């Protein structure tokens, strides 16, 4: 979600603490083990809650049972092959088919057992088979369904978010140096525009560039039929990428620049920066060594959160632009009551998040000499 990158970068307030006893290795090992165990428990609880919600207290089971009953009955009654059967034989056939279909979807077992199976399988990343959804290549493997959508999401979310992230940092840094200039004031004045979500800008962009000017497509990934030549294909995809990517960028660029600029500004009023300036160091060096270096943990945190947020895609922007990404797949999975796909997409996000949070502890220790792994609370 873009909110991660939107929120103002928070200052890392870890206080250096000295622990005299314990050898460093034991301490780090112990700390890591505890972290991993708590992370796993957190992920398990989160995923189980998602499974519970995706079932809505047995409500979804009822819906699925009814759909199976209706579908099977209609299928058998309408099938000319079975026309000669007696009513009883037909009924028996229907019951048998319903039972086998329910068995296939696991509906013959109580939800408690089924949910535990979902949880167990998902925790070992055995994503299993979808109940209804099918990938474009005809596979029912959840893994394949998600993998098939990943490139589109990575293209859209990746391109827009990376441009946004690095773009706003590199604009914010010089901007923080000359705050009070008209450019700075303009950024501040424009930053409320980020209260409007990306899909909303998308609507306006579609209206202007697709409906009125007719220079860019309304939506989708490629033209239909797609160009055969792979170069033309790539060009065509890029053309379709412009509107969704720019609406994602426009919707957060000004707030992002504003937050980073304020953040850098706070850091550049530190005494050591003043000293560096007083020494007569060139602004480039001051920026790189005295401003960027101490702010690196925050930049890394934000970047890591951004990268994992890519996984969830941008459901609504993808819906508005009919972009075949992960967000829209999740939305469709929910519409099709396809619990394995919902759980699959959640578990991957949860793991990515847990892994990132864990890694960040170590990265902090690497980039910030004041932080020691396992000493005090790094968060």
């Amino acid at each position: 979600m873009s909110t991660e990158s939107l929120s103002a970068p928070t200052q890392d307030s870890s206080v250096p603490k000295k622990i005299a006893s314990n050898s460093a290795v034991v301490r780090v090992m112990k700390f890591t083990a505890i972290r991993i165990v708590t992370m796993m428990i957190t992920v398990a609880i989160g995923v189980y809650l998602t499974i519970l919600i995706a079932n809505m207290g047995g409500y979804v089971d009822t819906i699925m049972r009814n759909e199976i009953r209706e579908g099977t009955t209609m299928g058998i009654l309408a099938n000319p092959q079975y026309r000669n059967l007696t009513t009883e034989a037909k009924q028996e056939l229907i019951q048998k088919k319903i039972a086998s279909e329910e068995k296939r979807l696991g509906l013959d077992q109580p939800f408690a057992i089924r949910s535990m199976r979902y949880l167990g399988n998902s925790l070992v990343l055995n994503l299993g088979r979808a109940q209804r959804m099918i990938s474009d290549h005809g596979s029912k493997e959840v893994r394949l369904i998600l993998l098939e959508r990943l490139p589109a999401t990575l293209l859209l979310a990746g391109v827009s978010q990376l441009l946004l992230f690095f773009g706003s940092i590199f604009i914010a840094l010089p901007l923080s140096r000359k705050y009070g200039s008209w450019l700075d004031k303009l950024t501040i004045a424009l930053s409320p525009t980020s209260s409007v979500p990306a899909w909303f800008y998308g609507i306006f962009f579609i209206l202007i560039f697709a409906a009125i000017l007719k220079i860019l497509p309304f939506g989708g990934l490629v033209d239909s039929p797609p160009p055969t030549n792979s170069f033309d294909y790539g060009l065509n995809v890029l053309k379709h990428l412009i509107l969704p990517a720019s609406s994602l960028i426009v919707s957060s660029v000004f707030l992002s620049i504003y937050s980073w600029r304020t953040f850098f500004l706070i850091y550049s009023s530190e005494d050591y920066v003043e000293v560096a300036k007083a020494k007569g160091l060139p602004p480039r060096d001051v920026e790189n060594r005295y401003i960027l270096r101490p702010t690196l943990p925050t930049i890394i945190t934000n970047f890591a959160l951004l990268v994992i947020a890519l996984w969830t895609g941008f459901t609504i922007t993808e819906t508005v632009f009919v972009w075949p990404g992960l967000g829209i797949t999740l939305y469709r999975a929910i519409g099709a009551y396809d619990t394995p796909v919902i759980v699959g997409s959640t578990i991957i996000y949860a793991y990515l998040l847990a892994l990132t949070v864990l890694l960040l502890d170590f990265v902090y220790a690497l980039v910030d000499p004041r932080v020691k792994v396992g000493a005090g609370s790094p968060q």
Partner: protein
Amino acid sequence: MTALKNTFRELIQYPSAVLGTLTILLLLGIAAYALATIPYDEAVRQWRGGEDVWYQNPKYAAPAWYNFFSKTKKPVSFKASTVDGGMTKTVTAASADISSVDMAYSFEYDYDAPPQEITLYFTTTFDQKLPFASVVLVTPDGREIKIGKMAVDRKTTYRVSQDLKLQKSLKTERVMNALFTNPDTGKMVKGTYQLRIEGTTFESKSGMDAELVLHGDLYGLAGTDKYRRDLLLPLLYGTPIALAFGLVAALGTAFLTMIIAAIGTWYGGWIDELIQRITEVNLVLPFLAILIMVGTFYSRSIWLMLGITILLGIFGGSIKSYRAIFLQSKEASYIEAARAYGASSGRIIFTYLIPRMVPLLIPTLVSSVPGYVFLEASLAVLGLGDPLLPTWGKVINDAFADGALYQGRYYWVLEPAVLLMFTGLGFAMLGFALDRIFNPRLRDM
């Protein structure tokens, strides 16, 4: 009080704050007007009423103010009825039983295109003998066109352009063209038209009323949608709903989060630990997906969505920043003093810890309103809008589902979108200014 005054004095120095406040006040005014003029049940009835409620409106009509921006003036829809006196009606008795009912309506027609349709809705009362009506249109250039003669039942709908006899007598199927253009030059005739209905009733207690509805290309202040619904209703009524959703969600989330953070930091120990763990679990939960699931599986009621939004929002990331601040103020000397005189934990939390935080909360609160307003619209765009209530998001969703942008019906999307945008920007601008006032660290930056 003086603090409030000072804040206000500072606030009016920021043009964005003034602009934002004005926008919010305007929206509040619209919301109050909507709630005062249209009761909740009536809004739902009109929005969900179908053709019975909206039969008088044209389909897909753009708003009437389109004519301001275009050179060719498109016809604007209107209606007139003898019941409310818009159409004149004179009854003269010829004998004991027979009386003639003359109805007439004059209207200015200065548009550059003929209307889509003219429809007459008759309501009559009689015992056995059906009343009779003949309809005549008098054009500005003095032509008197006999439109039709008919016996009218209790409820009769007469659509002028579908009258086969009239088509024959005018020698064209495009009746409206023939009625509103000069037969020699083929140009539109502009001026005052008069539609006369000469009715005759054949019983002493028999009566007759008529309603004239002209369907043009434009309608009202906001236009109409696919189902002939007047879009002014959702635009007006969507305002209180959007504001209520945004404000309640923002207030609920912010205050509950703060209370929980305060309780956690004050008691510490396992309570604090539990709250932190819940926050971490909540981080793993897919927020939008859960809302979509609840909407798809269970209920799309906007109030349920609001509850879930608040529930999931309480244990959000902001609990950590509140906790950090509470940890500091917990050690403050005034808390020490409160403890010394024997204040209870509840008293310390609710009268000492939390009130100190409220100023810090206000900017965040105001800035978070747009997010929730747009969340409602986002859910509606995904097809999970409230099934009963007219909201801005529903209008956008309807327009998208009907391909309004592909077909050039921009007003359908733009009107709710502009309102949403105003709401978002209004709160965001005010929130930004408040942030700079309440966070002195940002003030000179």
